[in-house]
C-alpha cells in the first residue's frame, strides 16, 4: 500500500509532470486563462491520460512484446493516444457542447500533449506493472490538473494587477510558472524518505 502511496505522492507533488518534469507546457500555458476552462482541461486530460496509460500498457505487453516489436513503441503509443483523444473529443462534443467550445482547439492538442506520451513511456522505463502504470498515469494527470487549476486561479488574479506593460500576458505567466516550479522544489526528497 505504502508503495502506491509513494507513487502517488511522487507523481502528484515531487515529480509533478508540469512543474518538475516540464512536460505538457502547451496546455498549461494555453488553457489556464480561466478557472472554468482549466477545470475542463484538467478533467479531459485526466481521463485521456488514464485511458492512454492503460491502453499503451496493454499494447506494449500484449501486442509489441510477444513479437519483439518494442522498437515500434513510440509510434504505436502515438497512434493509440490520438485515437483515444479523438474519441474523447467526439463524446464531449455530443454531451457537453459548452465544454467542447471552451476547450476548443486544446482538446485535439491533448494528442500532442507530451505529458500524455511521456507518462506511458515513463511507465515502461520504470518497469511498472499494469496497476502501477494506471496509478502512475492517473496520479500524473491529477498532478497536471492540480497545477493547471492553481495556475489558472493565480492568472485570474494577476489579470487584474498592474503588471508592467512589457510583462503583460504570457510573459508574466511564464514568470509565475517559474515561481510555482520553485515552490514545488520544496517537495524534493519527500518521496525518498523511508
Amino acid at each position: 500500500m505504502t508503495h502506491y502511496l509513494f507513487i502517488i505522492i511522487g507523481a502528484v507533488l515531487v515529480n509533478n509532470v508540469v512543474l518538475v518534469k516540464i512536460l505538457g507546457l502547451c496546455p498549461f500555458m494555453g488553457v489556464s486563462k480561466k478557472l472554468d476552462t482549466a477545470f475542463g482541461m484538467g478533467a479531459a486530460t485526466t481521463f485521456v491520460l488514464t485511458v492512454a496509460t492503460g491502453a499503451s500498457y496493454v499494447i506494449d505487453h500484449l501486442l509489441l512484446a510477444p513479437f519483439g516489436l518494442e522498437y515500434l513503441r513510440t509510434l504505436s503509443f502515438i497512434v493509440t493516444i490520438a485515437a483515444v483523444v479523438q474519441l474523447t473529443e467526439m463524446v464531449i462534443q455530443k454531451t457537453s457542447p459548452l465544454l467542447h467550445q471552451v476547450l476548443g482547439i486544446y482538446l485535439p492538442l491533448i494528442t500532442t500533449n507530451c505529458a500524455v506520451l511521456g507518462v506511458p513511456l515513463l511507465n515502461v522505463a520504470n518497469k511498472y506493472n499494469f496497476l502501477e502504470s494506471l496509478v502512475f498515469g492517473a496520479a500524473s494527470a491529477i498532478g497536471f490538473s492540480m497545477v493547471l487549476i492553481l495556475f489558472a486561479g493565480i492568472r485570474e488574479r494577476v489579470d487584474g494587477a498592474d503588471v508592467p506593460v512589457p510583462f503583460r500576458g504570457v510573459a508574466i505567466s511564464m514568470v509565475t510558472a517559474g515561481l510555482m516550479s520553485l515552490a514545488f522544489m520544496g517537495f524534493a526528497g519527500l518521496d525518498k524518505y523511508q
Partner: protein
Amino acid sequence: MDFITPPYLTQNVSVRRVMLQVLAALIPGIAAYAWLLGPAVLMQIAIATATALLAEAAMLKLQDKPLGPFLGDGSAIVTAWLIALAFPPLAPWWLIVVGTAFAIVVAKHLYGGLGQNPFNPAMIAFAVCIVSFPALMSQWPPINAQANFVDQLALVFGQSPRLDALSGATPLDALKTALKLGEGSTSVATVTADAAVFGRIAGHGWEWVAAGYLLGGIWLWGRKVIGWHVSMSFLAGMTLISGALWLWNPAHFANPLFHLFSGGSMLGAFFIVTDPVSGCTTPRGKLIFGFSAGLLAYLIRVFGGYPDGVAFAVLLLNLCVPIIDLYTQPPIFGMKK
C-alpha cells in the same frame, strides 16, 4: 476645491503605519538574535534594507511611478528585514543582495508592486537562494562561539575561508542529520541531550530569538495589525502533526515544543504567513492557509530535503490562495442559512 468622493471622513490609518508597526514588532526578536548570535545580523539587515530600497526605487523609476509614497510605505523594508532574518547571518554579502533584489524585482514589481504579488517576496528570496546556493544557505555560525564583530564582518564581506569557521548548522538540521546518520540507533533524546547546542527547548540561543518573535507577534495581535486566524492555525497545524508523530514514536520525532521554537516557526507564524497580500483573506481561508502551511512546513523540514520548510510551505500555500479564497467566501448579509 479638491475632489473628494464620499465618505468625506476617514480613519487615521495608513499602509505606512501598518508597516512601521510590523517593523517595531520585529525588534525584540532581532535584539535577542544580535545579543546571542553576534551583531552580524544587524549588518545583514542593513545590506538587505539598502538593496531593497535601491531595487524598489529603480523599479518605480522604470515604471514612472512616484518614488515618495511607495518608498515611504515601508513594505520594501519589511521584506528586506524578513529576508535578513531568514538567511544565515554570516552568509556572504552578495547572497543577501541577490536574494533581496530578486524578491523586490521579480516577486514584487513584475506583478505590479505593492499589494499585487501572489507570492511572498521574502520567501521567494529564501527559496531561490537555497535552491541555487544550498551550501551557503546551510552554514550557520557555531552557536557557542561568540565571534566578535570584526570577525563576522570579515566573513560577510571578506574572502576568508568559510568552511572552517562555519561548520555549524541549525539545531533543526543538526537533529535531522544526526538521526539520519544514526540509522535508527540514536534517539531524539540522546541527540538533544547536549544542552550547549540544543538548549532547554529548541536550541541554545535560538529559543530566545523565537521567544522574541513570539513577543512581537503578540504585540501586533494586540494592536490588531494581524488577526489571530493565520498565526494560531499555523502553530496549531505544526503542533498537531509534530505532536501526533512524537506521541507515536518519541525516539524518532522531536516534541512539538522543539519544532515550534526552532527554525522559522515563530517568525513564520507571526510575520510571514500573516502577510495579507499573498495570503488568504476569508476567515475560513485563513484557517486553512495557516493550518496547511504549518503542516507542510513540518513535513518538509522533517521528511524533505531542506533544513527548514517554512518558506516552501508558505510558497506552496500562496499557490493555493485564489482557489481557497474562491471556495471559502463567507455568506453575505441576508444570505446565511
